[in-house]
């Protein structure tokens, strides 16, 4: 286990190193200069600004400096907000994004499990049909369309929730719903398929023959075994939420990193874009690592031994 963990962490670091390198050189490839009014500036002024941002050094030195900074969590200074270090800008914004992302994930997966399990238990009835319809709709409706509709109907028309503000829990309800729809649909579909499989297996027959109650069979045998593979889709769901958050945070004016990413893209704030790319990759890598380890712990059949099968 320790060996496996060490190997995985090594790969995580390698991946992040490659991500940093590739984004750094991609950003160097970008056309144009970071100066908005180059024509109006004198040579010495330009030189001064370049020196301030460390742009006067050769590219390889800039790269090494950036790499050294990134290890310490220092991603340079934002172009857009000239006095703010990127790390400061982002650290104040990561909280709301994490909160909404986690809420959406938890809500989506839990409700998804319930809906999926109900569908499998009442296979080929109206309950099952509803499950299928909910999951296919959830996958097909883009989160930003859902976000606007929720904002308008639940926020503006009915006035149940604030429309676009950031504050306490009540402000997170609509974004969470908008972001949670896809994880909900995906996990409902996944759980249903898994559970239909599990319900037709021999040990379920045995459990029934033993005289276990229906709920006992479902809870102790069927549900547990169908939930284990659900861990494998947590990674893709995390990607989905990160992607969705960029638009949803914009729609609900949430001061999160998704909103910042879009803003930075629109204002060519390269250091912030780079910092965010690294943060997104880091989060995803960690999620993937955790789910892999969890999977090994939960399912003894694939216990990680470090040996390849």
């Amino acid at each position, binding site marked *: 286990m320790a060996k496996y963990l060490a190997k995985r962490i090594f790969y995580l670091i390698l991946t992040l190193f490659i991500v940093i390198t590739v984004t750094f050189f991609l950003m160097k490839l970008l056309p144009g200069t970071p100066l908005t009014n180059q024509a109006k500036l004198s040579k010495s002024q330009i030189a001064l600004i370049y020196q301030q941002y460390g742009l006067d050094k050769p590219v390889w030195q800039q790269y090494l400096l950036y790499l050294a900074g990134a290890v310490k969590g220092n991603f340079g200074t934002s172009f857009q907000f000239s006095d703010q270090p990127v790390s400061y800008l982002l650290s104040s914004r990561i909280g709301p994004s994490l909160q909404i992302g986690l809420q959406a994930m938890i809500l989506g997966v839990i409700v998804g499990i319930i809906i999926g399990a109900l569908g499998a238990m009442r296979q080929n009835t109206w309950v099952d049909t509803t499950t299928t319809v909910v999951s*296919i709709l959830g*996958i097909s409706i*883009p989160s930003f*369309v859902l976000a606007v*509709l929720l904002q*308008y109907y639940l926020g503006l028309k009915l006035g149940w929730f604030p429309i676009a503000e950031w504050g306490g829990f009540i402000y997170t309800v609509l974004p969470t719903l908008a972001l949670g729809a896809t994880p909900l649909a995906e996990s409902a579909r996944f759980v249903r398929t898994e559970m239909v499989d599990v319900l037709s297996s021999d040990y379920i027959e045995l459990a029934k023959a033993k005289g276990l109650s229906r709920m006992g069979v479902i809870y102790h045998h069927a549900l547990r075994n169908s939930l284990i593979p659900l861990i494998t889709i947590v990674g893709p769901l995390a990607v989905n939420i*990160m992607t969705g958050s960029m638009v949803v945070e914009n729609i609900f004016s949430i001061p999160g990193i998704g909103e910042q990413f879009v803003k930075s893209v629109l204002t060519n704030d390269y250091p912030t874009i780079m910092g965010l*790319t690294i943060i997104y*990759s880091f989060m995803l890598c960690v999620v993937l690592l955790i789910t892999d380890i969890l999977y090994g712990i939960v399912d003894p059949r694939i216990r990680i031994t470090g040996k390849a099968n």
Partner: protein
Amino acid sequence: MADTVKLPEDSFKPITADDRAALDSEKIAAPSLTFTQDAWRRLKKNRGAWISLIILGIIFIMAFGSLFFSPHNPNAVNPSYANLPSKIPGVNINGFNGTLVQAGERVDAYKQAGASSLHYIMGTDYLGRDLFSRVLYGTRISLIIALVATLFDLTIGVTYGLFSGWKGGRVDTIMQRIIEIILSIPNLVVIVLLILILKPGMTSIIIAIALTSWVNMARLVRAQTLEIKEQEYVLAARTLGESSLKIAFKHLLPNLSSVIIINTMFTIPSAIFFEATLSYIGIGISSPQASLGTLLNDGQKNFQFLPYQMWWPALILCIIMLAFNLLGDGLRDAFDPRTKE
């Protein structure tokens, strides 16, 4: 016990060829089907998938047909007819009859604009452009982006997966590591970075989506290739001295086709989704070009007062996504012989 069963004499006559032909139990009632025919038959049985296929067909024909027969020019600006709600001739339901609620009263917007004789099925946008034509135009752009991106995805993804799976060993390990690295950056982030470098526009969106979406295809194809290459017929082909390339085309690809087709059905909607998201954020297609994403973005600005401007593109986008997803599900079931009927 001692009873003997009396059987009539003629039970022991050998049957003639004619008799045998007349025996029902020997007949094969159904014509024998190839794998494709069988899959097609199963797909037709799946109502959702079948309807989706028809709807997609109609959307394709309308979107590409609008190149030649468009009700209006999608880019023709006509400020005096701006923001007219949708009006379908012969339908007198509020919302589809050209009326609007203004200051608490329902008024005929077409009369106000002096265009009583005209009708715009989906209404007009803030510049007076026919929304129906623009939706058709936007759908076409979205579909083109998705299809071209999928084409790249097919070529890059299938080749990568085939190569990795076929070679195996160290090459496979390295190629899988590369995929893992790509997978550890959210797709949209990569796409945005690529678009920044390539300058926003249709070509860069296609390239960006194509460069990121092949990964899934490559993984699936690799997994299948690993399985298929152990089969006897591949061994036989190798023994007979077939070249690797020929084996790939003659033996591997045909057996991979169902996986490839199914995955394509899920790549297309995700490409459409990415394009819509990018255009919605504002770094995708730029005006006067339109895609479903830009139309949604435009419509959303006026959603409170002119909800139809967002409803129509949203509806079409959702229908396309839904149809592709249902068709993909149907194809997956159709190609899987284990599916219960």
